[in-house]
């Protein structure tokens, strides 16, 4: 992909400023319809998922106390991996977005929730909810584009360091929660700018340190110790479960904004952006994953990334419901709704990481047209 303003054929050139505002109003109407219905079924749903997750996690950990016995290892590890995925994706991510704040239950609320992750919820909410969701796919503003360590857009400058990015991406996938923690700390930037000694940064670092200590103590010390003779096999099991969770969430998240068909935007293009234009950017900047109901739950409904980015605070199970309406809007406004099965989207994202590890001229690429289109200039996008 390349910044939408530089594309030879601009995918939104046919939309007038007025079209974009009407599109925004139509999306607002979808949101209002969901809000009018939101209530008991959403509360019951998240409580059920939480109960299922907690039951699964504790029973898997109990089974792993006997992990020397191979079937127990397999069942316990699989159960724990699924529990951790549910906890991070369908529960943690969505509660931390405030999707269930409407319930006014202090136990299930974005301000009180803490998740099974080394990045403290508070720091993640800032970098994810505030920066990524506001500046989605704006080069130089949205650090999710390559997480600051990779080049995922032709318009990002190439450095020799990028040659290694397929490897960085693989390592990041395996230890994704640590990658996220470093990302939420803006570790690289803060180190480069010498800000690592400020009291504010040190306090955040301590917060991450505390969280890592607790997570490591639980998974790699206490639980194995409680397993007695199964110490080593339980250690291997919790490590494997964390690895599976990390690779899975990394894959799902790569599919959200990296696959082919997703657009990026230049920094200047969002100055004075209207609500309609913000919606349009979310529509073009995200990609979905098609699949079964179970797949949607296991991705925390981030398989409906487009719907999630349009309405990040609607309860996640509503995304599937409104997807046909959202898709109809894409059709009506002549926009392309990017979606595909998981393997295809993961492959597409990985291919981009590999392709862009080389400088632009090394790979075939359509000619660049630097002239911004008239419609874009008019709409301000």
């Amino acid at each position: 992909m390349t910044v939408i303003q530089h594309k030879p054929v601009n995918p939104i050139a046919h939309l007038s400023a007025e079209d974009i505002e009407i599109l925004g109003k139509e999306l607002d109407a979808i949101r209002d319809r969901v809000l009018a219905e939101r209530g008991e079924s959403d509360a019951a749903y998240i409580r059920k998922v939480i109960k299922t997750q907690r039951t699964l996690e504790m029973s898997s950990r109990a089974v792993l106390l006997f992990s020397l016995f191979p079937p127990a290892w397999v069942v316990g590890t699989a159960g724990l991996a699924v529990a951790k995925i549910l906890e991070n994706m369908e529960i943690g991510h969505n509660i931390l977005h405030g999707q269930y704040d409407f319930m006014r239950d202090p136990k299930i609320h974005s301000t009180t929730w803490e998740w099974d992750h080394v990045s403290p919820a508070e720091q993640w909410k800032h970098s994810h909810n505030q920066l990524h969701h506001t500046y989605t796919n704006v080069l130089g503003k949205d650090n999710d584009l390559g997480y600051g360590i990779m080049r995922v857009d032709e318009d990002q400058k190439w450095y020799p360091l990028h040659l290694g990015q397929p490897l960085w991406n693989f390592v990041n996938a395996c230890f994704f929660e640590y990658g996220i923690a470093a990302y939420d700390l803006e570790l690289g930037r803060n180190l480069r700018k010498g800000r690592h000694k400020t009291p504010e940064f040190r306090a955040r670092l301590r917060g991450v340190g505390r969280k890592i200590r607790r997570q490591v103590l639980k998974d790699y010390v206490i639980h194995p110790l409680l397993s007695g003779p199964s110490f080593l096999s339980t250690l291997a099991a919790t490590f494997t479960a964390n690895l599976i969770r990390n690779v899975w969430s990394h894959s799902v998240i790569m599919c959200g904004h990296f696959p082919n068909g997703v657009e990026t935007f230049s920094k200047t293009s969002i100055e004075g952006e209207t609500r309609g234009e913000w919606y349009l950017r979310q529509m073009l900047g995200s990609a979905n994953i098609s699949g079964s109901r179970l797949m949607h739950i296991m991705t925390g409904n981030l398989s409906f990334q487009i719907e999630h980015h349009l309405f990040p605070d609607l309860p996640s199970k509503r995304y599937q419901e409104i997807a046909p309406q959202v898709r109809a809007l894409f059709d009506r406004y002549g926009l392309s709704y990017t979606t595909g099965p998981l393997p295809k989207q993961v492959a597409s994202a990985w291919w981009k990481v590999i392709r862009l590890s080389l400088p632009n001229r090394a790979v075939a690429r359509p000619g660049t047209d630097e002239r911004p289109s008239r419609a874009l200039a008019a709409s301000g996008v």
Partner: protein
Amino acid sequence: MTTTVPRPAAKTSVRDRLLRLAETVTTPLLPEDYLDLVAPLRAGAALRGRIVAVDPETRDAATLTIQPGRAWRGHRPGQYVRLGIDVDGVRQWRAYSVTSAPGRPDGRISVTVKAIPDGRVSNHLVHRTRVGTIVQLDQALGDFVLPDPVPARVLFLTAGSGITPVMGMLRSGAATRADVVVVHSAPTPDDVVFGAQLRALAAQGDIRLVERHTDRHGLLGVDELADLVPDHLDRQTWACGPVGMLDAVQEHWAAAGVADRLHTERFRPTVIAPGEGGTVTFTRAGLTLAADGGTPILDAGEAAGALMPSGCRMGICYGCVLPLRQGAVRDLRDGTLTTALPGDGVLIQTCVSAAAGTCDIDL
């Protein structure tokens, strides 16, 4: 949820050590988050109760019998309990008088709820509550109680659901120890909550009951009390009912110079009347400002120099939420009104909420 339970540092019992070990396994949750799934009413849990029976009293009132959790510390007759119930998935807190006598062998308590027109919570409790529902509770509160010993002569002056705290007192044997007169107003005989029981007490001679059916005879005026209960000003009086009635009663007793003999209970002392804009108070910062109905509270607060948490400023990141202690706000995106009664602490997104009346915000 990572907050650990504070505990005394001095002695570490086996139980404490086990608890600490359990916390290292359950982090980032607490052991209680798991125990709540199986034993929500156990000792040490946050105070909750299970509804074990719902019995209709009148066509629009019902008594809920609640089995409180082990943490319940009991109540004094006349006190109320704050009860949190999920209505349409949203937790709502309301206060209701305890109508059962203290010390039931099964530990249960009851509250009696009258459905008020358009009352979301009261209608849910009276008409749609299912047995088995778990409700959140606070410990009993309130000083609308009989002293010990009970004064020799007592007047209960009540209207509508105002009979509920008085019923708690009568069931605790107040009438057997004193000369009790009950003056109660309700629209019709059938609308008298606990009508049968009150009439039975009167028939036994335990109380003197004066019923006023306001549909036929109109509202009771304080000036009528001289005829109905000639010695009313000499009696220790407990009054509970609508605001208008209580205002009139207080004036009457004060004018006679015996305000100290009158005890009143006001439900919903603050009436939230939503409007456009209003006065916003940041309670901890001690800052008060006037905000119009079109300006987000975040902007208004910042303009007045308050140190407001903020984020995306468009309602998506939840970086700006603050507790609304009381008052009403309107969501600028869709016009939804959110109200909070004193003690509620409803969390609102200040970047998309404008004042819709007087608001107290915890900042």
